[in-house]
């Protein structure tokens, strides 16, 4: 973990309420796709944890949905604004387990971390399939970006307004070596049930600190109690215990 001051270089809407922000600063502590950053916002007590979409040298890209006060403030920030960010948080995805033909499943704002993951896997010469799930056509983002990486991309929409009608699990290929997913919990549960191979899941929880100190975001796993922020957010399929 590092505390870094970043300068916003771009902050644009991708859909009605999903924004992409690029920031310039020291990204050296971000070592794995699936990690997150925790952003201090003036006037708000807790930092805002946002998953890393991509890093490129000193450039950090995050994609966030406006869901509350913090993300609304972020959506109004202009270029040049300086942000106090804790970087390199969480474990991220373990690429070494992915095999030759992994499938990546992202739902809504669970899509962004899949981008850096897909990029790294393609760099390693893997054949990567990506399934992006959205509610409806107007909410879709990053289909072309994933295609540009060289992924085999399938889009699903719940209402059938674009791509395959249904959920990401309705588009699972017949054969794949491994899977990684990120999205809302109902999606993660569906992926858990529908997949035949091992895989990794990225979880969300309300966090206090984001770096393992407060125990605010703990969960129970097969291998004991884990902190989503420090021991996660990525957990392996075999260790997950679903709680209702």
């Amino acid at each position, binding site marked *: 973990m590092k505390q870094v001051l970043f300068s916003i270089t771009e902050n644009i809407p991708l859909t009605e309420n999903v924004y992409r922000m690029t920031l310039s600063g020291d990204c050296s502590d971000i070592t794995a796709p699936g990690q997150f950053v925790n952003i201090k916002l003036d006037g708000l*007590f807790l930092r805002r944890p946002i998953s890393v979409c991509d890093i490129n040298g000193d450039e950090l890209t995050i994609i966030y949905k406006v869901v509350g006060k913090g993300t609304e403030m972020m959506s109004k920030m202009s270029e040049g604004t300086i942000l106090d960010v804790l970087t390199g948080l969480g474990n991220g995805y373990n690429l070494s387990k992915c095999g030759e033909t992994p499938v990546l499943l992202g739902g809504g704002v669970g899509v962004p971390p899949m981008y850096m993951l897909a990029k790294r896997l393609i760099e390693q010469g893997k054949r990567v399939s990506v399934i992006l799930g959205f509610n409806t056509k107007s909410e879709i983002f990053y289909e072309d970006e994933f295609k540009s990486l060289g992924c085999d991309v399938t889009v699903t929409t719940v209402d059938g307004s674009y791509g395959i009608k249904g959920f990401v699990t309705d588009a699972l290929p017949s054969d794949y070596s491994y899977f990684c997913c990120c999205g809302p919990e109902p999606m993660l549960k569906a992926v858990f049930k529908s997949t035949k191979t091992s895989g990794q899941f990225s979880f969300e929880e309300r966090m206090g600190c984001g770096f393992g100190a407060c125990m605010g975001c703990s969960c129970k796993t097969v291998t004991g*109690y884990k902190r989503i922020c420090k021991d996660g957010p990525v957990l392996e399929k075999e260790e997950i215990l679903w709680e209702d």
Partner: protein
Amino acid sequence: MGRLSVNLCGIELDNPVIPASGTFGFGYEFAELYDINCLGTFSFKGTTKDARFGNPTPRIAECAMGMINAVGLQNPGVEKVIAEELPKLKKCFNKPVMANVSGFSVDDYAYTCEKLDKEEQVGWLEVNVSCPNVHGGGMSFGTDPKAAAEVTRAVKAVTSKPVIVKLSPNVTDIVSIAKACEQAGADGISLINTMLGMRIDLNKRQPVIKNKMGGFSGAAIFPVAVRMVYQVSNAVEIPVIGMGGVSSAEDVIEMMMAGATAVEIGAANLINPFACRDIINELPDTLDKYKINEIKDIIGVVE
């Protein structure tokens, strides 16, 4: 001894800054970030007789200038704390540490304190009496002077280390509880623990926190903490540790002027993991600014 040093129950601290229990783990997460030997000491994660997961999530809610937590004393239990956490701590911290202890019966407290008493690195036992008493109808020990005194006596009987009783602010008369603990043999008092609070999610029409309520901490509670530290330190002879919303070097000085011998810092660590180090670094200039020679000179100067 420098100008920041204070004496807490017979043990000299290099400075009065102490990260509060529950916001600093067992130290080593922070030791990756900075040399935690700069601290006066720190109070480690609340430890109970048996391992606890704590409450269901979500257990964090944001507030104006603060936060609510309902973690519920997640910890690996005293045996594992001694076998696994303290050896790790020893590698990154070479000062006496404050052991924070919770329990759900008087016997629980005594059991856990007796175990920790044998640990060389434990300098003080900080006894959190804000937990519900399972044999007393679930009322918190800290809301009843008799129950708080009973816990204090039971702990004093099993340890030779200084016992600091950490009080809850969720009471009608905190002074009477502090006095009861002092009479029962407490070597110090720390206050305030979190204030009971609640937030509601307007979309879901439900409490944000699964447990409905939790402990409110952060800068917002600072004035309440200063007031209670002032009241208690004027009523007891034993040292008082002040805490509750302390976020700056000036807050440390204010707490000490109110009567605190040392100051714990909690929620601020969660927002800025370097908060305690930064505050310690700012203290000398802040003393100069207010024409204070040695920090111990200002303890309780406010009449």
